[in-house]
């Protein structure tokens, strides 16, 4: 797996993305400069005196020049110190680590659903392009892509949780509380998130598989006397796996973003709701910490996908 070529690829990518990460941290930290109002005044409370505000400004180092503040935050971040919440005083990294598994479980379930339903649908549609199955899949997929997550989420809550009591309407359970309860709580938010993912996977897989199946090399495979099953499962799937990987990366990024809305609808204590809460109360260390964590996760996943490309497509490793 980890050949010398692949390690070199990872090294090259890291060199390429280091400046991007640095820029991202700068933007993340710079956010607080853009927000109107004085953070120190907000922190000090409504009836605080000017002296108290100045004291707080000094306490949080907000009186220093911006670049100095950025430098010290970045230095801390490099050492795993993202500061403390201005509201609760909790160490930011601890809250991220505590809440992240909850969000990841929902995203993971949504991704699993997207793939395990989207892939068979895409294949079904692609093997008979133009058939009734194809038309059905295609139109359902367009619908799935167009449906807003939060709307679907509310519909699901209203039907399955409030009306029929199949699932809990809100909250989350950690995996440590048992797989059953954890999945039960994750089910509705994951389904709400997965609708778009299923549609996207089905659509993309259909179009790339149709293209592969009508390609010249598939004609060669028929001319060699291979069965349609061997052509589809062996050659078809291996050739579309590269596209599928791209779609997985895209969907993962999108799901991660969508948890912000979904966790709000389901009152789930994940990092999505954490960042929303922090944003409302201008709790900058938390906002910066969560956004930085998300950026790093997205970048690492894309790096992993880049490496997997070289496993699936022999042409990539040559470049």
């Amino acid at each position, binding site marked *: 797996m980890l050949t010398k070529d692949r390690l070199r690829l990872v090294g090259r990518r890291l060199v390429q993305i280091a400046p991007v990460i640095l820029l991202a941290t700068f933007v993340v930290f710079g956010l607080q400069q853009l927000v109107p109002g004085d953070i120190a005044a907000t922190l000090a409370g409504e009836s605080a005196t000017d002296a108290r505000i100045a004291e707080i400004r000094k306490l949080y180092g907000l009186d220093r020049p911006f670049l100095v503040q950025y430098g010290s935050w970045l230095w801390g971040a490099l050492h795993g110190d993202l500061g403390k919440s201005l509201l609760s005083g909790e160490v930011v990294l601890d809250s991220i680590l505590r809440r992240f598994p909850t969000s990841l479980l929902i995203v993971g379930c949504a991704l699993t659903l997207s793939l395990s339903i989207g892939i068979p649908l895409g294949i079904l549609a692609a093997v008979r392009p133009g058939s009734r199955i194809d038309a059905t899949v295609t139109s359902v997929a367009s619908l799935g892509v167009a449906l807003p997550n939060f709307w679907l989420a509310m519909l699901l809550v209203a039907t399955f949780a409030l009306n029929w009591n199949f699932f809990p309407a809100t909250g989350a359970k950690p995996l440590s509380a048992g797989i059953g309860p954890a999945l039960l709580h994750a089910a509705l938010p994951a389904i709400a998130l997965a609708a778009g993912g299923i549609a996207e996977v089905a659509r993309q897989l259909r179009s790339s598989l149709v293209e592969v199946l009508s390609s010249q090399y598939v004609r060669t*495979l028929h001319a*060699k006397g291979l069965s349609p099953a061997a052509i589809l499962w062996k050659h078809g799937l291996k050739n579309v796996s590269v596209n599928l990987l791209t779609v997985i990366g895209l969907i993962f990024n999108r799901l991660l973003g969508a948890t912000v809305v979904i966790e709000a609808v389901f009152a789930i204590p994940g990092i999505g709701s954490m960042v929303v809460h922090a944003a409302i109360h201008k709790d900058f260390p938390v906002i910066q910490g969560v956004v930085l964590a998300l950026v790093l996760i997205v970048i690492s996943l894309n790096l992993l996908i880049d490496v997997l490309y070289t496993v699936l497509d*022999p042409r990539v490793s*040559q470049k």
Partner: protein
Amino acid sequence: MTADKQPLLDVRGLGIFFRTEAGEVQATRDVSFQLRPGERLGIVGESGCGKTVTGLSILGLLPRAQSRVEGQVLFEGRDLLTLSPRQLRAVRGRRISMIFQEPMSALDPVFTIGQQIGETLRAHRGIGKKEARERAVEALAQVGIPLPSRRVDEYPHQLSGGMRQRAMIAIALVCEPQILIADEPTTALDVTIQAQIIDLLFDLSARTGTALLFITHDLGVIAETCTRMLTMYAGEVVEDSPVDAALERPRHPYTSGLLRSIPRLSKRKTVLPSIAGRVPSPADMPTGCRFRARCVHGLAECEARQDLLDVSLDRRARCMRQAELTLPGAIA
């Protein structure tokens, strides 16, 4: 010369139709020819004359949903057009193989050359992976690929165009088929490589006795390689003849025009194709002689439908003036 042998492949009245938005169009009409064991038959004609679809229809490779084929393709006593998909698969790649114009796009980019040869073998013969690999190395050696035991594990993009086409040929011949259909196998290659591939096909065919159906728009290649030739024009066979006889005195004005547009080293580069005009499209095919609009010998009677007329025992031409005209050939 081989007229006494039983035909290996007997194509009769092949008509190929495509469903398009503008309704059904007919791509070929009444295409008939025979291929004898070990024979090398060239099919020549400009682009769009129906050569490729004729080759594809023999193995049932036309897109099923959009096409319809009438006529018969008799091979070993059976009509290939009536075989079940399973029966047809037993013929494809084993009794009759086909190679295509663009070796890069005709090979699966994510499987090694060895895997692509091996799976053909394994589809038709019950052998293991290891033996398939050994046979793949031998097959690569046979088509003149240097270092075959290394090339066998390489992917198509790692090979040059000429090597890729050799690999395609190795795949096609690994099960020792009776017939190889080669559709413009050299058109996408450099001139020097073209000659090598043509030599290779000629040698392999001569050595193994595999009959060759050589489809090309280049009559020069057919003149070098084939024993018989079939000229196709606008979906019809217009001349079916031994190559030597056709080169000397073509019986159809279209064959003659093609012969005179073969680029020759002795002539200057400025030689223009000697036939003005274009092939009519299947959607608006003229009644009567389809070549009439481009023929300098046309008469009013050519408006009538032209049949393939016997020139001699093993020659036919679709021109009512075939006997009276003395058309220039390649040697003139």
